[in-house]
């Protein structure tokens, strides 16, 4: 123990003697650790934002859709689509569900007095706004009557408004969706960009009846049903109930699998969490490569250092250092260097996160575990890449080392 402490001191002296070279050596580690911390934190930040958004959807949310499967590169529908009959059955029988809205979406060309843009029209009913707790900036939502009579009215998002109306007040004005005139009755409150980069304000919401009649062409059924469970605690029950009702409605026999999916907000969170988790791991792994490169840098410098200090090593051996003393000395040097790199890299990474926040407004909370990973990796790299040069030093023959020019 005492011996180890003394060896530490010796290692520190050696590093201190070559300060500028030591700093250059650790540069690779500094950058590597900073990169690991920043990428992992960015991944975590993105994940958190996605999760927040999904939470924003409402904890009671239950989504019901037709099961799709990838076949030959395209989505293929498995079995019967969710349709009006399903909707009616659920509405009539599901006791755990409070609100429901069909959802159909169509890609369209929208034109207003000041411009046009390709966008997506969502066909929904009046309860949709409640289910997703969307709020209005101007005007009003469309009403149950509008849905019943398939009125050509719509509520638009801020991005859509900007493109189609510029400075004009959109309420009461007409836009043409695939050449069909719709009257704008409401403007949604801006919610900003989604975490995946999609613009949540780039939407048009219209009664699904109207969309089905006018724009949906030959397609049958709904893309999905959005529903609200009675409260947070009834979500699981709602899911079971919906599944049972739909199996009945779709006449699925007991041994057959569902031909629809019911997903709750929690499940959605889990799935996206998995996706962003994979993304984060991938990014972190790529960043780790730079750490390994940094480690090779350390090994390189340590090898040079061993050669340069051959006589010193010879002297130490002649004076009574054991091989293990020399080995630990050089190992400690490598580890101290990489840990110093780890510390500086952590600082740099945290600063980097702040800078990104200042520049892009994308808030990245520095994930504590990213610091641990960066640090641990740095230490590991130090040991792994320091070991070879250290061993080389320890195995030197003292007489040859003393004679080394």
């Amino acid at each position, binding site marked *: 123990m*005492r*011996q180890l402490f*003394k*060896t530490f*001191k*010796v290692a520190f*002296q050696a590093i201190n*003697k070559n300060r500028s070279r030591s700093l250059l050596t650790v540069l690779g580690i500094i950058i590597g650790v900073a990169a690991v911390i920043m990428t992992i934190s960015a991944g975590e930040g993105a994940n958190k934002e996605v999760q927040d958004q999904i939470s924003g959807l409402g904890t009671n949310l239950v989504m019901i859709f037709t099961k799709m499967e990838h076949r030959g590169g395209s989505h293929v529908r498995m079995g019967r689509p969710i349709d009006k009959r399903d909707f009616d059955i659920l509405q009539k029988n599901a006791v755990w569900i409070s609100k429901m809205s069909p959802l159909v979406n169509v890609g369209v060309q929208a034109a207003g007095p000041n411009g046009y843009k390709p966008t997506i029209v969502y066909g929904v009913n009046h309860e949709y706004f409640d289910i997703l707790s969307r709020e209005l900036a101007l005007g009003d939502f469309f009403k149950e009557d509008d849905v019943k009579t398939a009125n050509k009215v719509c509520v638009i998002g801020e991005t859509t408004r900007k493109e189609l109306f510029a400075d004009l007040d959109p309420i009461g004005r007409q836009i043409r969706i695939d050449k069909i005139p719709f009257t704008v009755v409401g403007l949604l409150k801006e919610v900003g960009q989604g975490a995946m980069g999609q613009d949540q304000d780039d939407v048009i919401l219209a009664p699904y009846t109207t969309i089905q009649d006018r724009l949906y062409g030959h397609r049958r059924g709904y893309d999905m049903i959005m529903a609200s469970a009675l409260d947070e605690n009834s979500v699981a029950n709602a899911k079971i109930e919906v599944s049972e009702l739909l199996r009945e409605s779709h006449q699925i026999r007991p041994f057959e699998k569902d031909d629809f999916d019911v997903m709750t907000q929690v499940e959605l969170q889990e799935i996206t969490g998995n996706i962003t988790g994979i993304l984060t791991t991938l990014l972190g792994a790529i960043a780790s490569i730079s750490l390994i490169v940094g480690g090779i840098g350390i090994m390189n410098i340590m090898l040079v250092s061993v050669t340069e200090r051959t*006589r*010193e090593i*010879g*002297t*130490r*051996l*002649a*004076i*009574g*250092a*054991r*091989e*293990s*003393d020399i080995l630990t000395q050089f190992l400690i040097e490598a580890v101290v260097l990489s840990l110093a790199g780890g510390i500086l890299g952590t600082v740099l990474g945290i600063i980097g996160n702040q800078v990104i926040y200042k520049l892009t407004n994308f808030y990245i909370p520095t994930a504590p575990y990213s610091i641990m990973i960066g640090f641990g990796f740095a230490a590991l790299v130090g040991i792994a890449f320091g070991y070879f040069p250290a061993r080389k030093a320890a195995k030197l023959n*003292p*007489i040859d080392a*003393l004679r080394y020019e």
Partner: protein
Amino acid sequence: MANKKVIETKNLSKVFKNGDIEVHALTSINMVIEVGEFVAIMGASGSGKSTLLNILGCLDKPSEGDYYLDGVHVNKLNKNELAAIRNQKIGFIFQSYNLLSRTTALENVELPLVYNRTGKFLNPAAHAKMALEKVGLGNRIYHKTNELSGGEQQRVAIARALVNDPAIILSDEATGNLDSKASIEVADLFVKLNDQGKTIMMITHEPEIAQFAKRMIYLRDGRILTDEPIKNRSTKESALLELGLTVS
């Protein structure tokens, strides 16, 4: 009663093999060195002086023969035990000083104690300071090696060889890189240390320096040619006088 033997060799031989070529660097060396002796080793270049000293210093192993250092049968020791014996029983001095660069005299002298595991030297700095004072460098303790003259550096090296209170000090041409005056200073230092009871063995090329010792072993082709006491030993004064210099 005979004095205690510090070094005893029995039929010590060393053969270097380089492929097919065999170099018989040492052949049947038998010698005994007792406590308090001051031995000079001389001989032509290539006569095996350094080879002998490396073996005596436990840096190298003999090809044949036995070596006892301070009663320990060195042949039987493993690597770590050899390191320990170098650390505790031997003080090595080299021609090229071999100090740590850009490091203070004090830290250099402390170095053997860093590797000392006996727990005998609890305050390395104090021991190192004492050793530096013994070699007359009490006022250079915190100088870095590159701030010292060659003679001073060699004295730091001598202090380093002293600090662990070794059974014997082995010096391989300690004065080889120094001018005559500095060489005499170093030789005189050896005499003083010997007077204080240190056992010293030094290789030298220079007869004037060898003349400071009490006994001279002359090697030729790896064998001991002569081994006799030195009559009319030099002193610092006589050596300086010979150089035409006066005592400063």
